């Protein structure tokens, strides 16, 4: 026999339980799930710490940044301005111009690398398609600026961050990416070494063949053979 108004009383029992236990229950109190906003008034405006229970975690991705190895930004820049990410970017928010030295020869570096943050939708396609691991996603989001028309257009120097910084914001991902790059470099060297070895062997074989040919032939034109070797 369903008591009259029993459903309402059961519902009220639930809310009362929530109310009372929010003061006493250990596990319930800590998941009063209002997450503290990461930024504290007066806190220095450098990198927001990646804590698990705030809005900035070790996994969140917001806007892309360019990576460079070593201390000098332009020295160790990884990006070679191959413009694959510019083509693949769904909202087309990246603009790259290649860098040329005085003689007009293309040196593998971007002269201009702009990302319009107001257009970017942080979808991480550019990170995937980049063959050189030059672009990764940052986790900082305090990027609001006063002027609307140029403020959110980030230029190459603002985008450049050190690889060590990348380790600080996304430790796990950074380690995985570095291991993969190290492994690829090792393979390339191994392949390179194998290729050198093969080329050296081929060169020796050719040299040996020539010596053999010379012995079997009289000495009519000695000076030219030396040049060909």
């Amino acid at each position, binding site marked *: 026999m*369903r008591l009259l108004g029993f459903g*309402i009383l059961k*519902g009220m029992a639930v*809310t009362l339980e929530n*109310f009372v236990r*929010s003061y006493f229950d250990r596990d319930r109190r800590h998941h*009063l799930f209002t997450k503290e906003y990461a930024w504290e008034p007066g806190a220095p405006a450098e990198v927001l710490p990646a804590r698990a229970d705030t809005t900035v975690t070790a996994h969140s991705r917001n806007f892309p940044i360019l990576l460079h190895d070593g201390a000098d930004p332009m020295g160790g820049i990884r990006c070679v301005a191959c413009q694959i990410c510019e083509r693949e970017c769904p909202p087309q928010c990246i603009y790259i111009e290649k860098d040329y030295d005085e003689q007009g020869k293309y040196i593998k570096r971007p002269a201009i690398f702009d990302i319009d943050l107001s257009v970017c939708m942080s979808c991480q396609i550019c990170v995937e398609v980049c063959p050189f691991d030059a672009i990764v996603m940052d986790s900082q989001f305090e990027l609001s600026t006063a002027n609307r028309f140029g403020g959110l257009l980030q230029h190459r120097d603002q985008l450049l961050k050190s690889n060590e910084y990348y380790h600080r914001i996304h430790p796990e991902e950074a380690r995985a990416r570095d291991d993969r790059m190290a492994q690829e470099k090792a393979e390339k060297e191994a392949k390179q070494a194998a290729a050198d070895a093969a080329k050296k062997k081929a060169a020796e074989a050719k040299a040996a063949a020539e010596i053999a040919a010379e012995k079997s032939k009289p000495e009519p034109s000695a000076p030219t053979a030396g040049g060909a070797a």
Partner: protein
Amino acid sequence: MTQTLLNLLAIAVPLAVGFASLFAFTTWLERKILARIQNRIGPNRISLPFTRFRRLFGLIQPAADGLKMLAKEDIVPRDADKLLHLLAPILSLVPPMMVLCLLPLELPYATAGMRALQAAALDNAVLLFFAITSLNTLAVFMAGWASRNKYSLLGGMRAVAQMVSYEIPLVLSAAVVIMAAGGMNAQAIVEAQRAQWFIFTPWGLAAFLIFFIASLAETNRSPFDLPEAESEIIAGYFTEYSGFKFALFFLGEYLAIFAVSGLAVTLFLGGGAGPWVAAYPALSCVWFLAKIFALIFVMIWLRGTLPRLRVDQLMGFAWKFLLPLSLLNLFVAAAALKLAKPWLSWPVGALVLYGAAVALSRSHRADAAPRTYSYAE
């Protein structure tokens, strides 16, 4: 002449100032309790300027809200009826303020002269209470009509219809207590409950429940907060109000809540009675306010749990459920008082009342029951 004036001031000023500051405290209390019910923390970021008290659990939030309300621009619609537009919030504030003096609140410092002047000693205090609270309906209508906007007019008409139809169960359930206490004098009613509070008798409990539900509807609270039902097209009668007039409406609503729960405490919960009152007479005022806040906690708790009733269900509930039940309760109480044999009249009264309640609700929503569901593989 001047002595009576001084006595009057000594009673009136603490009531007005006390309840107005309690209004500020209650807004904070409501937001904190609702937050805790919903696993949130509630307001805690406002800090006193120029002092080192950082957050103080958000107690300064009401002051900030009040200041914001003062600073907000007061927009009056172009073709609104200026006079009535201004008068409505005032009229919504005056009756609850007037009614607060009718509550039998023994002020700790009261001298004999003062106590004689207290309005609670009036012969028909409870009747005056209902007479003055019926003015609220006027203020609601005036606000709805004066802002000359079709939706606030419809919202106002809805609120008026709700308040008028819930006034009858309110008065009838109070009539039960007046009959039991033998008079409408508030202090006499509290005296009559010295032996036993009315809420502990079956017909008293039924009357209290009806009174409480009707007072929820009278002050547009929780399951009956139809006028400010944002999920429907009609946004309620105070849409055209902003700034301090809007705050006045809220002050009026909260004072009405204090007044109605104060009356509920007087009629059913034995006014200022409580342990140790004999030893320290000043405690009766504390007990009175504690009981009021207990009722307010239940109101906030209801607001955090229950969804809203539809207009026709709301009306049907008043006319087809509360009214017949309160009439029957009047009859049962009369019989019980006449028989005066508690061991017999109480169980019978309880049975009759509960049976009638179930029969009434079964006759309206016969098939409203949770269903079981079949599964397909």
